[in-house]
C-alpha cells in the first residue's frame, strides 16, 4: 500500500519530468490507434459501399475478376441470352444486364482527365435499377441514347462538371462523346471511384464492341427467397460455366481486395509506429534512470528504514505503470484525432471520406493502452532494477548524484560481438548470389548491427564526442569545453539519447542510399541501353485510337509497339512457366539495346523465333536453335525457335522473352490481341525537338498517357523515387520527433540534476548567455553523436542493400552526399532546437537556490 502511495506521490511530484516521456508514449500510441481507426474507417466505408452496390445475386463470366480487365483491354462478357434464362429461374424477381469497364479514361472538353485519382478506379457502365440502391439522381435524368451520359456527383463537384458539358470516354473500342444529362449522387460514401453511366445499348456497343452482351447479370430475389436459394436456382438455370455470387459473396470478394490493400497500408504504418515505440523506449529508460539517480539518497533512506529491494523495484515500476496508462489513454484519444486528420489529408488528395463512417472498434483502445503500458513498464524495468540495487548506505553518502557507472566491459564485449555478427551478416548479404538468402541475411545484419550499436553506443560516445568536440567546440572556448565534458560525464545517458536519434536517421540514410542508387542505376541503364527518343505510357493500356494518333505524328522515324502477352512456356527440358512473352516490333532492338550472350536479337524478331533471358537459358539449358513451346492464352500453341539469348544483367526487361508482333499475330486471333503496354518512338535525325512537340500535341486528347523523352523520363523516375522517399521520411519523422523529445528530456533532466553546478557557475560569473550556449552545445553534441552513428550505420545498410539488389539490376552505388550532409547539419539544428527550453529554464534558474546551504 505504501509502495503505491509513494509511487503516486513521486509520479505527481515529478509530473513535469514525466511529461516528455508521457508525450513519447502518447505519440506512439496515437500513431498506432490512429492507424487502426483510419483503416477500420476505410473498411467501414468500403463495406457500406459494397453492401449497397451488390445485387442479390450477380452472374459474371468465369475467370473475370472485378476491377481487372483481361489483356485484351475489353472486359469479358456474357451473352445476353443468359438474361432471359436467369429471369426465368425460380425465386427471381427481376434480372438486369449490367455493363461495366474499368479500362477507360474520361476527359472533359478541355482534354483534362476527370477520372479518379488516388488509385481508385474510373468506371464506365450502364445505368441499371440496381444502381438506385446506392445512388439517386440529383439533377437531370438517366442517360438515353448514344450521346447522353450521367456522371457521379463527387466527380462532377471535383471537376466543376454541369449538365450539358461534354465528356469523352476513351475505351479500348473507341471514344464515346456524350453530353452530361444527369448527375447521380451516392447515398453512402464513395471513397474515390469516378463513374460515368450510359444507357445499356450505348454501353454495350462502345465498351464491349457490340450489342447482345453483358459483363454481368444482376439478379434481384423475390420477396421471401434467400440470396443463397436464388443463387442455387440461377446456377441450375444457367449451368456451371459462370461465376455466380450472392450479395454477401460479392461484397466479401470486393472487400477482400480492398482489405488486402488496406492491410498493406496498416502494417506499413504500424511498422513506423513500432520504430517510434523503439525510440520512445530509450526516452523512457533515460527518464527513469535519471529519476532514480536523482532519488538515490531517498531510495537509500527507504532501504535503510526497511524497504526491500522488491518494494523499491516495484515502486519504480508502478510509476512507470501510471506513466504508461496516462500516456496511452491520451494517445488513444489523440489517435482518433490523427485518423480524422488523415482522412482530411486524403480528402485533400482527392479521396472522398466521411467522418460519419468513423469506426473506433473496442479493440483499438484496448490494444493501444496495453501496448503503451507494456512498453513503458518494460522500458522502466532496467532502471527499476538499478533502483532496487541501491544500497542503504546511499542515504548516508554525500549529496549529489554519483556519475553513474562507467560502461562496463561486458557491455563492450556484448556490443562488439553483436556489431561484429551484424557486420558479418551484412557482408554475407552483400556477397550473396541468391537474392532470397541475401535478403534474410540483410535483415539479420540490420537488426544485429542496430542492437550492437545501441549496446556499444555509450562506449563510442566517449571517442565520438571528443572528436566532435575537437572539431566543433574548440571555437567556443571554456563554454564549449564544459559542454563537451557534460556530454561525456554520463556516457550511458548520452549513448541512449543519441541512439534514439540514431535509429531514425539510420533508416533515413539507408533509404536515401538505396533510393539514390536506384535512380543512378536506372539512369545509367537508360543511358546505356535505351535508344528510343520517346516513351509513351500511362494509367491505361494504349488504346488503338491513341496508337493511330501517334503513328500519324510527323517527324518520327519509327514507332515501336510493345505488348505483354499471357502465355505458358515449356522449355526443352519440360519446365513450364506462366510468365508470358513480350511481343514487339523489330525496331525494339534499337529502342532498347540488349546485349546478347548468344545469337542476335534481330533474328529473334523473325517469324516463329524468339529470345530468352540468360537466367532462363542457364536454368533450363536452353541454347540458340532450341525450340520452346509457347501456348498463347486465348490463341494457339506455337513452337518457337530460340534465336537469341539476352544478357539478364540489366534492370530493364530483365528476363523478358521477345517475339515479333508478326509471330504473335500468327497465333492470336485479332480480338485477343492486347493493346500496347508502352510505345516507343524514334525521331528522324535532327527533328527531335519538333517531333517531341508534335507527339505531345498528337496525344493531347489522351491525357492518361505521358509522352517523355529520355531527359523527362529520367526526371520522372527521379521524382517518383523522390516522392516515395519523402513519404517514408515523413513517416520516419514520427520516430525522429520522439528522438528529439528524448534529447529535450535528457537536457531538461540534466539541468535539474545540475542545479547546484549551474548556480555555482552563475555565482562565479557565467553569464546567462554563456550558460544557455553551454546547454545548446551539449545538445548539439548529443544530436551530432546520434547523427554520426545513425548515418554511418544507415549508409552501411544501404550499401549492403545495393550490393544485394545488384542481383536485380541495381548496379550503381550512389551515396547521396548532399542528403547525408544535409541530415548531419540538420541534426545540429535539431540539437539547437531541442535545447531551447532546457537552456531557457537553466538561464532562469535562481542562483541562490543552487548555492544556498541547506
Amino acid at each position, binding site marked *: 500500500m505504501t509502495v503505491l502511495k509513494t509511487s503516486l506521490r513521486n509520479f505527481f511530484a515529478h509530473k513535469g519530468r514525466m511529461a516528455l516521456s508521457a508525450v513519447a508514449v502518447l505519440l506512439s500510441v496515437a500513431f498506432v490507434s490512429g492507424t487502426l481507426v483510419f483503416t477500420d474507417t476505410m473498411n467501414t466505408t468500403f463495406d457500406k459501399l459494397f453492401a449497397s452496390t451488390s445485387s442479390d445475386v450477380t452472374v459474371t463470366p468465369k475467370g473475370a475478376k472485378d476491377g481487372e480487365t483481361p489483356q485484351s483491354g475489353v472486359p469479358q462478357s456474357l451473352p445476353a441470352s443468359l438474361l432471359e434464362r436467369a429471369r426465368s429461374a425460380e425465386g427471381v424477381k427481376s434480372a438486369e444486364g449490367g455493363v461495366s469497364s474499368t479500362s477507360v479514361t474520361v476527359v472533359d472538353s478541355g482534354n483534362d482527365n476527370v477520372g479518379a485519382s488516388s488509385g481508385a478506379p474510373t468506371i464506365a457502365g450502364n445505368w441499371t435499377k440496381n444502381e438506385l440502391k446506392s445512388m439517386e439522381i440529383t439533377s437531370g435524368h438517366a442517360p438515353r441514347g448514344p450521346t447522353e451520359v450521367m456522371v457521379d456527383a463527387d466527380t462532377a463537384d471535383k471537376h466543376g462538371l454541369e449538365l450539358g458539358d461534354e465528356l469523352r470516354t476513351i475505351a479500348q473500342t473507341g471514344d464515346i462523346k456524350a453530353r452530361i444529362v444527369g448527375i447521380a449522387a451516392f447515398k453512402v460514401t464513395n471513397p474515390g471511384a469516378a463513374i460515368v453511366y450510359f444507357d445499356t445499348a450505348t454501353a454495350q456497343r462502345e465498351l464491349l464492341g457490340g450489342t447482345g452482351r453483358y459483363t454481368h447479370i444482376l439478379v434481384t430475389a423475390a420477396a421471401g427467397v434467400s440470396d443463397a436459394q436464388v443463387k442455387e436456382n440461377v446456377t441450375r438455370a444457367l449451368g456451371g460455366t459462370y461465376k455466380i455470387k450472392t450479395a454477401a459473396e460479392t461484397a466479401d470478394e470486393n472487400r477482400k481486395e480492398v482489405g488486402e490493400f488496406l492491410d498493406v497500408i496498416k502494417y506499413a504504418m504500424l511498422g513506423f509506429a513500432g520504430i517510434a515505440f523503439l525510440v520512445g523506449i530509450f526516452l523512457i529508460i533515460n527518464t527513469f534512470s535519471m529519476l532514480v539517480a536523482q532519488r538515490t539518497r531517498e531510495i537509500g533512506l527507504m532501504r535503510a528504514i526497511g524497504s526491500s529491494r522488491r518494494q523499491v523495484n516495484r515502486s519504480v515500476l508502478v510509476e512507470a505503470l501510471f506513466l504508461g496508462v496516462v500516456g496511452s489513454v491520451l494517445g488513444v484519444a489523440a489517435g482518433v484525432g490523427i485518423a480524422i486528420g488523415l482522412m482530411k489529408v486524403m480528402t485533400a488528395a482527392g479521396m472522398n471520406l466521411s467522418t460519419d463512417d468513423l469506426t473506433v472498434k473496442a479493440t483499438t483502445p484496448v490494444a493501444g493502452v496495453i501496448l503503451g503500458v507494456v512498453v513503458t513498464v518494460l522500458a522502466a524495468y532496467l532502471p527499476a532494477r538499478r533502483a532496487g540495487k541501491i544500497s542503504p548506505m546511499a542515504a548516508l553518502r554525500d549529496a549529489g548524484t554519483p556519475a553513474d557507472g562507467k560502461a562496463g566491459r561486458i557491455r563492450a564485449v556484448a556490443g562488439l560481438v553483436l556489431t561484429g555478427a551484424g557486420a558479418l551478416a551484412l557482408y554475407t548479404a552483400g556477397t550473396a548470389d541468391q537474392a532470397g538468402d541475401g535478403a534474410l541475411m540483410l535483415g539479420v545484419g540490420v537488426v544485429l548491427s542496430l542492437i550492437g550499436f545501441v549496446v556499444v553506443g555509450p562506449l563510442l560516445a566517449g571517442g565520438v564526442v571528443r572528436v566532435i568536440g575537437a572539431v566543433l567546440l574548440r571555437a567556443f572556448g571554456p563554454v564549449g569545453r564544459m559542454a563537451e565534458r557534460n556530454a561525456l*560525464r554520463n556516457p550511458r545517458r548520452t549513448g541512449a539519447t543519441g541512439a534514439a536519434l540514431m535509429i531514425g536517421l539510420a533508416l533515413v540514410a539507408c533509404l536515401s542510399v538505396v533510393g539514390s542508387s536506384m535512380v543512378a542505376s536506372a539512369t545509367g541503364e537508360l543511358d546505356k541501353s535505351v535508344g528510343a527518343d520517346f516513351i509513351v505510357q500511362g494509367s491505361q493500356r494504349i488504346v488503338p485510337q491513341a496508337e493511330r494518333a501517334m503513328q500519324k505524328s510527323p517527324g518520327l522515324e519509327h514507332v515501336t509497339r510493345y505488348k505483354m502477352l499471357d502465355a505458358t512456356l515449356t522449355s526443352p527440358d519440360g519446365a513450364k512457366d506462366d510468365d508470358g512473352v513480350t511481343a514487339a516490333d523489330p525496331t525494339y532492338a534499337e529502342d532498347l539495346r540488349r546485349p546478347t550472350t548468344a545469337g542476335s536479337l534481330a533474328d529473334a524478331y523473325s517469324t516463329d523465333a524468339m529470345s530468352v533471358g540468360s537466367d532462363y537459358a542457364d536454368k533450363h539449358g536452353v541454347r540458340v536453335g532450341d525450340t520452346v513451346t509457347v501456348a498463347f492464352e486465348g490463341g494457339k500453341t506455337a513452337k518457337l525457335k530460340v534465336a537469341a539469348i539476352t544478357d539478364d544483367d540489366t534492370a530493364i526487361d530483365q528476363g523478358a522473352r521477345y517475339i515479333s508482333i508478326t509471330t504473335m499475330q500468327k497465333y492470336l486471333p485479332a480480338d485477343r490481341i492486347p493493346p500496347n503496354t508502352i510505345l516507343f518512338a524514334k525521331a528522324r535525325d535532327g527533328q527531335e525537338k519538333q517531333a517531341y512537340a508534335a507527339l505531345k500535341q498528337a496525344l493531347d486528347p489522351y491525357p492518361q498517357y505521358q509522352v517523355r523523352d529520355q531527359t523527362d523520363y529520367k526526371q520522372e523516375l527521379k521524382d517518383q523515387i523522390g516522392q516515395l522517399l519523402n513519404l517514408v521520411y515523413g513517416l520516419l519523422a514520427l520516430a525522429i520527433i520522439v528522438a528529439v523529445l528524448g534529447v529535450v528530456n535528457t537536457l531538461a533532466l540534466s539541468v535539474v540534476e545540475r542545479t547546484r553546478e549551474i548556480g555555482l557557475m552563475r555565482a562565479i*560569473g557565467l553569464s546567462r548567455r554563456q550558460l544557455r550556449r553551454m546547454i545548446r552545445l551539449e545538445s548539439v553534441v548529443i544530436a551530432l553523436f546520434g547523427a554520426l552513428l545513425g548515418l554511418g550505420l544507415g549508409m552501411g545498410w544501404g550499401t549492403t542493400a545495393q550490393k544485394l539488389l545488384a542481383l536485380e539490376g541495381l548496379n550503381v552505388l550512389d551515396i547521396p552526399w548532399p542528403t547525408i550532409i544535409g541530415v548531419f547539419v540538420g541534426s545540429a539544428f535539431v540539437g539547437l532546437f531541442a535545447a531551447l527550453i532546457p537552456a531557457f529554464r537553466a538561464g532562469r534558474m535562481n542562483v541562490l537556490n543552487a*548555492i544556498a*546551504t541547506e
Partner: protein
Amino acid sequence: MTSAVTIPRHGSTGGRTAVAARARQVVKAYGAGETRVVALDHVDVDIARGQFTAIMGPSGSGKSTLMHCLAGLDTVTSGHIHLDETEITGLKDKKLTQLRRDRIGFIFQAFNLLPTLNALENITLPMDIAGRKPDREWLARVVDTVGLAGRLKHRPTQLSGGQQQRVAVARALAARPEIIFGDEPTGNLDSRAGAEVLGFLRRSVDELGQTIVMVTHDPVAASYADRVLYLADGRIVDEMYQPTAEQVLDRMKDFDARGRTS
C-alpha cells in the same frame, strides 16, 4: 545598536577607497502582509579593504542573506549596496554577472567545484569564462600558497574535502578579485582541514592584501578574522576586533542567554 560603522584602517592598497563594500539601510524582506519575513532590517555596514571580516549569528539571523546581498547574488528590498564606487543595487543581471566574474571571488560551504573540470581548470574557470588569460606568475604563487601543485590534474572526486576547499580558495584568489565572500567555507571540514583553509585565508589577507568576508557560526573560524560582526534578527547587534575563539564563544553565549531571557 543598529549599525556599526568602521573607522577606516591603514594599510589599504593605494588609489582605492578604504572601504571595499558598503551597505546602507539595506532591507531584505520575503513575502507580504501577514507572512512578511524580514531577513535584513535596515542594515548599515562597511567592509574595510584588506581586512578579514567574519559575520556571525544564530541560524535565521540573516547572516547568509547579508553576504548574498553584498555579493550581488541576491536583490535587496530597499537600501543601497556599493562595491567600491559601483552601486550594485539595481544592476541588471548581465552587469551583476560581470561584476561577480571580474571583481568578486566565492568560496561556498560545499559543492564549490565543477566535477567535470580538474583542479587547475576549476581554479582558472572565472578567468576562462571572462576570456582572460590568467597571470601565470600569480597563479603559480596562489597554487603554491594553497599547496596544490601536485594535484592540479586531479578531478574534484579524487580530492579530499580539505583539498577541494583549498582549490576553491585558490580559485577565489586566482582572479585577484577585489573581495572574496566565503559562505561557511570550513563548515564541511574537520578541524585540521578547516584550520588549514582558514590559515590560507588569513595569509592571503596578510600577504596578498586580499579583502575577505566570511559567514560562519564557528567561533574558532571567526577567530581568524580581523573583525567579527554579530547579526541577530536581521540587524547588526555587535562587533568585535581582533577576536579570540574564547571571546567569540563568550559573546555568543551571551547573546544566546539574552535571547532566551527576553
